[in-house]
């Protein structure tokens, strides 16, 4: 999986958990929290959906790696690769 594909996976999850947010113009290098109203409950949901849909585990200590789309791609892409995706 490429980093762009990983970003797409994260965007699909955000679209489902926060349908009231406009995600069409998100900047990759800016914190998601600064571009949308996402609280800790929403971040928990991103983690939970990654596990449910893709079997990806994100330990609580690593939640900070999900801050922006770029950091999500850097952190998650190797996890997808490790699963052969």
């Amino acid at each position, binding site marked *: 999986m490429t980093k762009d594909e990983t970003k797409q996976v994260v965007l699909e999850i955000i679209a489902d958990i926060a*349908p009231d947010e406009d995600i069409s113009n998100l900047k990759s290098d800016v914190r998601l929290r600064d571009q949308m109203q996402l609280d800790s409950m929403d971040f928990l949901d991103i983690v*939970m959906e990654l596990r*449910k849909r893709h079997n990806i585990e994100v330990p609580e200590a690593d939640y900070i790696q999900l801050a922006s789309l770029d950091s999500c791609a850097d952190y998650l892409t190797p996890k997808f690769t490790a699963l052969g995706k």
Partner: protein
Amino acid sequence: MNTATHYDVVIIGAGMAGLAAGIRLAHFGKKVCIFERHNATGGLNSFYSLGGRKYDVGLHAMTNFVRAGVKGTPLTKLLRQLRIERDEFALCEQKRSRVAFGPRGDVSLTFTNDFTVFESEVARQFPAQIDGFRRLVSLIRSYDDVSLGAIPESARAVIRRHLSDPLLEDMLFCPVMYYGSATEHDMEFGQFVIMFKALFLEGFARPLDGVRVILRVLLDKYRQSGGERRMKCGVQKIITRDGQARALVLDDGTEVTATHVISTIGAPETERLMSPQLLAPSAALTASLPHPAGALSYTETITVLDREPAALGWGDDTIIFFNDSEKFTYERSASAVDVRSGVICIPNNFDYGADRHLPEGLFRCTCLANYEQWVNLPEAEYRAAKARWYADIQRSAQRFLPTLPTPDALTHATVATDMFTPRTITKFTGRMGGAIYGSPQKIRDGRTSMDNLYLAGTDQGFLGIIGAMLSGISMANFHILQAGK
């Protein structure tokens, strides 16, 4: 019993908190079952049929309403967490409500879902208090009311640091207390903040078809997520060992086991299930529970009219919180009912849109009531007491509405009546003492004396329909999903 059914999570009670927790857990793959003793869902916010009509139980108005686009409030959070589209709840806004104090409601503060209306009313009626009021509101806006570890503080003490007029103080406490306080006279400030935001900074709304609409959405979601539920089958006993809830004995005598248990039936009610000697509770034993049952109960009259209430000259106020006395007294009623203060609700007066209206007129009144004075009455006396107090409550409430065109206009327009009492509440919800707002002692983190048993709902301390749902969500997240268990 090796053959006993095992669930990842068992939820006791199919009210708002139980259904919301169930949706979260089932969505994320947990094997969940909700056990509900009653034949209807909704718990304290249920509905019933009588004489071919459907009545809502608790719902005057759903609080916490915000318009589309407003984010970060309880309603928005719960829609996201439960993957519900806001249109599914089909919420219609209130027209306007008021707090009316004095023997004839001489001092009155109107409010709507636009907070500036309330603020200008306070400025008009209490010009000397408005600066303090604004400081109080900004404190409330910035207060972290969902923190699970806040330090308790007296709301009266906080309000008195900002307001010096006891009349205004009572006029703020009256609606806030009636819509959610389990404590007499005062509240914990965090609870006050939750309710103040829910009523005044957010607002009132209702689906045209009432609470059933919300329950249908929750039930559909729960079913689609793969959750199971069993109706008319409560939990009669929790078997504990080594600090764990090991098994649950159902009303039909069968036993199930669960890795986690979420109880939404109340703190003392849950404690009772763990203490077999309390299954036939006496007052003394019940009082010995770690979390006491609430002292506050209520009665409600429902009057069905053959016309819109506005046609009686009553205007189109949605909710009226009233008090006739110099001081507002929020305490266990000394008599069967305390008619000095209460809440009038006219469900017809929501803005349902053009050509959409309720089939009949409805006029509902709620007052504080004394559980003990209702619970042991023999049937004939119980009926007589209902008839007597129904008339007294109506008389009291009408003082705060415009005068009828003729004295018997209400009687002529009435096609049906019903009334529920503290006894009715306990019968259908299992709440001890008819205490719909539960124990005065809330347990914000939901922990109990058992490691794998958590509380959600009223006694966890998030209030109202939206609060109850958010409570179920928070406890499922905090104790089970987030913990990765």
